[in-house]
């Protein structure tokens, strides 16, 4: 017996989703084996994760809160990856977005009692703009000078982190703690619990308007990539940049524009997180949303709606990580899922052939 990989011609349509689901299932089995090896009870752990993330409407709502920034950063990555622009900087763009939104509250000196109808759009704009700028920098460097965007976006993450730390440790620090003062209520995104008085079922639920932003953004991205000429040109550039040039497309402009939009989406995620969930800027505002977004984008095969599904799965894992001990288990599962996805990708392009040695005739 001998096993070999042979290239596939045209993989059938169902193959890729099937392999993705299989990869996740295999990852869970591997996770279970690891758990069993260290003396844990895998069934109990998994049940606990499911319960901690989806067990009742309260935790489900918390899962959606975690999923919100993941959807927006996941879209940011998926959009850039479609053009083979490896934006590893969603984390930094997220942080800048959070900072930009905070700047509206803390840096502009707006009078107290400025209404939400002014504050929230201003924060969205500032967050998206700050994220976009953080995306445009590597975009321009790549388009004009051919600088590798993986390096620049990765490095800018650390700059962004230091930038946020400077502000929360220094000028905006609340009594010496590494966080700002809580934002005024007008700067909070409406939450489901805000309607608790009218609909008792919603009281205590923290899912906020950011989820709506995320879904609207998903719809817009989906429409743009699948229904517009712009989306077609992006597909062309992503698959073969030389063919795109041959078709008369200005690739350099596209690189900058896509980086700007990608950064703006991640920046909006940062805004949504400070305005919808944390209500202040603080050190460690992101548990690595911008990095998890990379896994999500691949898990979703860069499809906008699939980003939403993958984000909810990963939101659940992040939430469960806080709930169960040891908290390393969900992180381990994330890692194993990524690994299995990469392996699964091999099987979309190759088929495994198990051949018995052909006996020589004559």
């Amino acid at each position: 017996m001998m096993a070999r990989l042979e290239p596939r011609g045209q993989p059938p349509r169902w193959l890729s989703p099937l392999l993705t689901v299989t990869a996740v299932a295999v990852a869970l089995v591997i996770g279970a084996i690891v758990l069993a090896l260290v003396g844990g009870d895998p069934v109990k752990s998994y049940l606990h994760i499911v319960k901690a993330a989806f067990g009742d409407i309260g935790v489900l709502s918390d899962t959606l809160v975690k999923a919100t920034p993941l959807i927006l950063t996941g879209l940011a990555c998926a959009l850039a990856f479609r053009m083979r622009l490896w934006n590893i900087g969603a984390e930094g763009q997220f942080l800048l977005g959070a900072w930009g939104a905070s700047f509206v509250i803390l840096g502009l000196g707006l009078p107290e009692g400025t209404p939400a109808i002014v504050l929230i759009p201003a924060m969205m704009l500032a967050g998206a703009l700050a994220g976009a700028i953080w995306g445009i920098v590597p975009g321009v460097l790549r388009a004009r000078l051919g600088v590798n965007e993986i390096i620049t976006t990765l490095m800018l993450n650390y700059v962004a982190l230091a930038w946020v730390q400077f502000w929360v440790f220094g000028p905006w620090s609340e009594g010496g703690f590494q966080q700002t003062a809580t934002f005024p209520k007008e700067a909070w995104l409406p939450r489901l619990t805000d309607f608790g008085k009218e609909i008792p079922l919603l009281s205590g639920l923290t899912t906020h308007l950011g989820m709506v932003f995320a879904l609207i953004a998903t719809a817009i991205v989906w429409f743009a990539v699948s229904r517009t000429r712009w989306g077609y040109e992006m597909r062309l550039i992503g698959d073969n940049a030389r063919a795109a040039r041959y078709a008369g497309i200005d690739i350099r402009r596209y690189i900058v524009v896509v980086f700007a939009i990608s950064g703006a989406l991640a920046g909006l995620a940062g805004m949504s997180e400070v305005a919808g969930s944390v209500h202040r800027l603080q050190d460690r505002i992101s548990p690595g949303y911008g990095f998890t977004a990379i896994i999500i984008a691949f898990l979703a095969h860069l499809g906008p709606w699939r980003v939403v599904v993958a984000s909810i799965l990963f939101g659940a894992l992040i939430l469960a990580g806080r709930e169960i001990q040891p908290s390393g288990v969900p992180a381990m599962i994330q890692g194993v899922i990524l690994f299995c996805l990469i392996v699964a990708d091999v099987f979309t392009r190759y088929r495994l052939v198990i051949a018995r040695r052909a006996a020589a005739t004559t």
Partner: protein
Amino acid sequence: MTATEPLAPPVASSSNALEAVGIVKSFPGVLANDHVDLDLRQGEIHALLGENGAGKSTLMNVLAGLYRPDEGVVRVDGRAVEFRSPRDAITAGIGMVHQHFTLVPSQTVAENVLLGLDKPRFRLDLKRTEAEVDRVARDVGLKVDAHARIWQLSVGEQQRVEIIKLLIQGAQVLILDEPTAVLAPQEIADLFTTLRSMVATGTSVVFISHKLGEVLSIADRITVMRAGRVTAAGIDPKGVTRADLARLMVGRPVLEQLKRTEVEAGHVVLQVDDVHADNDRGVAALRGASLEVRSGEIVGIAAVAGNGQSELAQVITGLRTCTGRVMIEGRDVAARPARESIAAGVAHVPEDRSGVGSAPNLSLVDNLILRAFRRPPLARGPLLDERASRDMAGGLREAYAISAPTLDAPVRILSGGNLQRLILAREIDSAPKVLVAVQPTRGLDVGAIEGVHQMLLDLRAKGTGILLISEELEELLALADRILVMYEGRIAASFDTPSGADVDAIGLEMTGGEGAGAGESVSADT
């Protein structure tokens, strides 16, 4: 299992260097080799002829140890062998030069040769390898600099390195997969000389090709394959004509009979005036090239590879910056973005079909709308009308007989001929004023070439001015109204066809012109 062809089965004899008997190899959905026999005598050049997809490469990959046959035996010098890898094959003395070379561009010739050896297990003895390269190169009459880095070499030189590499590894049988597809006419002649001197020293050669003229001129014997089977085994080239071979290959009589409408050449649609441009390495490739193409006219460019013809095409289509003037119907598009050339009415069949002319993983629809997507009816404001796109793609697929399973299939699964039809369909459908076609039939088989030629003539009849850049002189002679010879970035000579075009005269101009031997106006430089 003898119900195949009424030919006598080859008898195993000691003089056969390599022998394949009853090879069967199938891939999902395709029976690539259906009980194929081949015998290669020692010291002969045996041509394996067939269209793309006939199973030639599959058979050779079996012989070179890349594929394992489902059935059948391979014998080397009469002994049955079973190859598990190309290494086994080379140990048995069988080496293959693939269409895509397997050299490391950043390393020198000697280093690349060394890579294939397993003798110095640890310590690298470059000096000795260099000496070895020089010796082998001298023996078979190849010119190669052992110190040169691969990326500095022309395609023809790289091919020589591949051959030398295999000879040093001890290959007694060389399999060359379409070796002339990438070569200029002069390089082909050099290769043939080398092959002759190699077989004289006892090496045996399998020469894979689908070019009839070539096969008849070089082969000692010919085996023809069609659709996975052998249709003629080891026949003598003396007794057959090109028409016979074409019939054996294609399965029907092929006589290229093109319908050529008489068209009066109209106004000038393309005018290139004193254009200068650099190539990718920053060396001047176009040095004051000037030419004109009129509507309803095919102007052929004949040149040995690397004389600026690729850059000329890129300058006209906006893919390369330049100085000078490139006028499309009076509009200067020199050094302007590709989009302006397109808007001015330039269509382009690029040299590199899969690398430039198409997006391999995108669907037929996406590839077919590449020219039309900016204009209605496909474009509706910023939106792209999916229904209209599919209608257009479906119409083109039918009109140009592009065979593909569905409109959503990625174009990378198309055969070379089908992909070229797709590109031509798209470019012709854009109703261009000027078409720049570069090597439009390179790598295509006989049937497909006929189709492409007819498409170009039909477009000419509609009044498009066509600039045809080709390394196939026969193609230029058959299609072009005028042939311009390019040499070192300039137009060196012009010939009217058919009356004033003499193959020898054109060939002479292609290699540098007067001084080389025409002798009537310029004295020979000895």
